[in-house]
């Protein structure tokens, strides 16, 4: 079991079951993920064989309690994602999408038929989901989306393209966001195999290689009205899902930061250069290690607070932006510093550092780029929105 960095005795802020959940998932990651992950990432393969195990552990939709789901606290759910991403961001992304971007919108905006049909299947890993919001021409500005949902009789016809969709090629079910004839954003459940619906994998990624990312193509896909999420109205519906997922990412990237920090610390204690001293004895190396430990510690406090606010029911999307922005930024900086400390060994897959470093480039960008979250906070502080979409 990995020793956790805990300079401020933050463990004391966690309940017994939160620590138990963290340690259990941590052990699973140590035993089931770390031995294989470098190879999977190298091959560019998501380890599908782990899906039943993750389902058995109860990792999908862990923080919800409907349908007999575990109902763990938001902090426990965050710790699950932290431990998963200590393994790899790809695995954490899978769980984030399944839980926060697929199960959450069905639970929150779905009909009881939709919930009955999909929630147990998604929780048990019998069905895999994806979330299609981003389009080739609309990333940071999803309000501009071109995907259309047109009324036809009692049902709908969807057409358009979604890009960069995690789990796309694996998915049995896509949550697709499209604008209706009045320009209102609506959510639809599109099943694999629906005529006109196809997926194409994005190849050539250097980041999140142990994760599947795809393009979704919708060519006049006919859907009954029962496929629409009845309670989802407007862009705020997908944005509410993103707030859930971003909360998890703020925790997840802490795991990546801890992994690279631990690797750099262990390496620096052993690697000897100049005068028989380990490089950890050099001041400049210490400064890097301290920087990492310092930022990780601060970020731990931020995400812990977000979790408690979430359980109180008062967490705002601005607070989530602060956490997502801070964690991803500091983890990415940690990975870069760890890479420096490992020297040439920092670039090979005998160590996890380069993999995390490359993964974090995606995580820095998806779910709202660092700069977009800066602008969210900027708008909150100043009252001036610097990123309002211009006329299309």
């Amino acid at each position: 079991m990995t020793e956790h960095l805990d300079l401020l005795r933050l463990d004391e802020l966690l309940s017994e079951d939160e620590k138990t959940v963290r340690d259990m998932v941590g052990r699973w990651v140590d035993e089931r993920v770390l031995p294989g992950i470098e190879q999977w990432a190298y091959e560019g393969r998501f380890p599908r064989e782990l899906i039943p195990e993750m389902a058995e552990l109860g990792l999908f939709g862990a923080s919800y309690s409907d349908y007999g789901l575990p109902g763990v606290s938001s902090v426990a759910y965050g710790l699950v994602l932290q431990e998963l991403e200590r393994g790899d961001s790809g695995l954490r992304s899978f769980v984030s999408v399944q839980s926060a971007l697929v199960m959450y919108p069905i639970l929150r905006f779905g009909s009881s038929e939709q919930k009955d049909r999909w929630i147990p299947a998604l929780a048990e890993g019998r069905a895999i989901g994806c979330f299609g919001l981003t389009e080739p021409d609309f990333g940071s500005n999803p309000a501009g989306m071109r995907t259309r949902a047109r009324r036809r009789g009692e049902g709908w016809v969807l057409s358009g393209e979604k890009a960069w969709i995690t789990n796309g090629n694996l998915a049995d079910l896509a949550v697709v966001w499209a604008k209706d004839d009045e320009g209102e954003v609506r959510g639809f459940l599109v099943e694999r195999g629906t005529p006109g619906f196809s997926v194409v994998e994005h190849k050539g990624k250097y980041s999140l290689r142990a994760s599947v990312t795809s393009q979704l193509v919708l060519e006049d896909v006919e859907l009954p009205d029962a496929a629409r999420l009845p309670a989802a109205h407007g862009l705020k519906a997908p944005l509410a899902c993103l707030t859930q997922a971003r909360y998890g990412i703020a925790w997840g990237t802490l795991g990546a930061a801890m992994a690279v920090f631990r690797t750099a610390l262990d390496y620096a204690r052993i690697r000897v250069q100049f005068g028989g001293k380990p490089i950890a004895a050099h001041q400049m190396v210490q400064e890097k290690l301290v920087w990492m430990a310092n930022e990780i510690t601060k970020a731990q406090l931020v995400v812990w607070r977000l979790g408690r606010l979430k359980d109180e029911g008062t967490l705002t999307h601005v607070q989530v932006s602060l956490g997502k922005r801070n964690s991803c930024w500091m983890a990415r900086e940690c990975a870069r510093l760890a890479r420096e400390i490992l020297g040439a060994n920092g670039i090979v897959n005998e160590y996890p550092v380069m993999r995390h470093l490359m993964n974090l480039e995606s995580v820095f960008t998806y779910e709202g780029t660092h700069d977009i979250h800066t602008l969210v906070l900027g708008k909150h502080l100043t009252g001036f929105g610097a990123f309002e979409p211009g006329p299309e």
Partner: protein
Amino acid sequence: MRSCVLLACVPDTASVIKLGAAGNRIDEAGIKWVISPYDEFALEEAVRIKEAGSGHVTVISYGPDRVQATLRDGLARGADAAVQVTGGETTFGNALAIARVLAAAIRKLGGFDLVWAGVKGVGSDNSLVGAMVAELCDLPHVSGVLKAEFGGGKVVAHREVDGGMEVIEAPLPCVLTAQKGLNEPRYPSLKGIMASKKAAIQTMSVADLGLDEAALAGAGCRWRSLALPPAKGGGMILNGETDPAAAARELARLLREQAKVI
């Protein structure tokens, strides 16, 4: 089948062990306590037997309040009931005292077809408690079980012995101790963890069992002192670049005379 599983709460094998001030105990500060790994095999087997047919699994642990976490871990992995015998500070590491307490608890609870324990407790590695409990309860016992089949009020247990397998038949009730290889223990699920948090743990004291803990602690064995393994010395490097033959001769001499391995 009604079974009980004896769970020892031991320091995580990844813990860094430091000695306590008295010199005959480890320093418990900062230690992470876990179910002894051999007990995990025992628990897993008991839960599988229950799942394959029907039954009930009780986990029992003797020790201070930290064993509550051990018991909850057991509940999270499928046990139905948990019993803590409180105390254990003064009898720590005293196998006979521990076995007397556990045997008394087993008799008091009563009605078990099967008592499971790990073949040994990780850390003290004595392999004593399971066999002692069997003797004290006057039950047959098979230690180091790698496979167990049940039927007709009997168990057929397989255990590894030097160069082969021993197959032993014993009537139920009996005591079995689990060896590594018996099964692959499951991870507790999040749902199990959440449910175990709410479950009640039955507690009883050593006095409730009609035993005197101070007397137990004074008998049997006593830990006089503990020592950490000596620090590893630096290695020796023989330079073979200029005269490889001489270096090889020197290596052979050192292996024979100093290391005495050839």
